[in-house]
């Protein structure tokens, strides 16, 4: 995505209005630049390792054990959080919660900024969130916060995140963890 927030009171302009769309197959997106996947993985790891209160937001597609791939990813995400020294806050469903969310321990796509504000999160990975809700949330986060957002997506990616990796299945997550370990070691963390 072109610019890191805060932008406006309203989630506009969105990335596509600025001519940025999802990266082509085999590539990744860093801000508005289409890059090789490995380059993006290194940058994502660096940002997560060097930002305050870096957090992973696992979504329903990895939180629940409804198929083998989800279970494999769960194990890898737990490992990823350890490597990145990141907290985990779940987006366990998408409902607009009544009367309000507990911003300390949960994130909701309808007001994701509340969790980011409350926990002073400066970098976050969205993973396992259905693409539509990820996009709704990412636009709001970009508009309302200064959090560096990262989408690790099993499908086509998310141009409203500041970094997006696409087609990320368990094998790619394992590759990312390996790279993150290398970056961590380079940064002497």
């Amino acid at each position: 995505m072109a610019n890191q927030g805060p932008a406006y009171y309203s989630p506009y302009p969105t990335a596509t209005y600025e001519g940025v769309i999802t990266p082509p197959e085999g590539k990744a997106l860093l801000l508005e630049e289409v890059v090789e996947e490995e380059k993006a993985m290194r940058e994502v790891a660096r940002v997560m390792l060097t930002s305050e209160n870096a957090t992973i937001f696992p979504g329903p597609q990895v939180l629940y054990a409804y198929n083998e791939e989800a279970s494999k990813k769960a194990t890898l995400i737990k490992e990823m959080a350890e490597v990145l020294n990141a907290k985990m806050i779940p987006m366990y469903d998408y409902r607009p919660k009544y009367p309000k969310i507990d911003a300390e321990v949960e994130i909701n796509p309808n007001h994701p900024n509340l969790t980011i504000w409350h926990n002073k999160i400066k970098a976050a990975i969205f993973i396992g969130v259905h693409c539509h809700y990820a996009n709704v949330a990412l636009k709001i986060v970009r508009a309302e916060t200064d959090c560096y957002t990262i989408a690790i997506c099993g499908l086509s990616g998310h141009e409203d995140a500041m970094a997006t990796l696409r087609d990320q299945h368990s094998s790619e997550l394992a590759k990312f963890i390996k790279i993150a370990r290398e970056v961590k070691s380079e940064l002497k963390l």
Partner: protein
Amino acid sequence: MSKITDMTATKNWSGQTLVTADHMLFEAPRTKHFMTGSEVLKEAVKRCTVDASVSYPITPQSEAAHLIGELWAEGYVGMYFRGENEFGVMAEVAGCAMAGSRTITTTSGPGTLRAMENFPQWSGTRIPCQLILMARGINSPLTIQPDNLEVTFMLETGCMIWYAENVQELFDMSIAAFIVAEKPDVHVPIVTVVDGFFVSHTRESVMLPEDDIALFPYEPYKSPLPPIDSETPPGRFLRDPFVMKSNYISYATHASWQWEVRSAVERSRPYAEHFLGGLLHETGDLDAEIAFITCGTASHQAKEGQRELAKLGIKSKVIKLRTIRPFPTKELVKSLEGIKHAWVPEFNVVGWLEKEVKTALYGKSDTNIIGGPRVAGGMSLPAEAIIQEVMEVLNPGKGA
């Protein structure tokens, strides 16, 4: 009846070999046939591994809907029924699609308007269904004749809109439409428009691949929202929730959601470019200083005008827009480089395409855009009318 459980990794439930859209559209050998638009739509649907279709009669769409019904009876389409009216049909289509079925329907004119509330709901809930719109006039007074005024009502529904000029384009577009609409980062409805009667009822030669191949099935679990089938988490999931019942910030959800739907349409550009060979298509003298910006059968008439003008020694080109949503702004600006005057001939009284063109080009092009000629209510658009408009600008007061 066919059963979905008859499908294998290589064959669909009717025994057709499963192929990619690239194979179907670009590689499979084709043979020549002579068909109407309605008949060719049947051939397209036959090759698309379609799960569901819901129909309702209206002129001139009925025949296409009958033929899809025949495909169901023949075992090619999984399920099919007649709904109670177009509002009901589009809601039934929504149900089929959000429960994970590749779904198609068709309508025309007053049917489109009756169903209207459903279309922004379709895009809002991110279903990749296809509507074949066989454009006709809308009331009052009643007309069943060709006229594409109804398209203007569809422009801001959040659906993709493609416009086919002829029978061949209808075949190819309606196949590509499913594939582009179903891309996970697009995944919004697609409206494939043709001019009623001029395409639906006109028999033309058309090149078709064999009917023993069909597209791979829709993959509902790549949907950007969980399909409504109780098989995908979260278990607690409403498609789609009221977002103003939480607190103030949910206004941002509605805004973000709406921009996301429009973003999804934008993401279709590279896919449409690949499958359609560009969002617009140019014919005629490419170094001309005058042009016609068209869609649908107006393109055909403009091409006739272009050929007649060439006989008079006047160079012109026709810029046919294949997609209206997304609108091919960048391509149009480039195509108009060096063009002094461009006309927008249309089959409606309001000139919606002229407005679209002018809005898109504002501040981006020096070309003089001239609305018209326009016909409506079933009138044809003779090349003479187009030539006359051109000559009145090029040769004022002297006519053609």
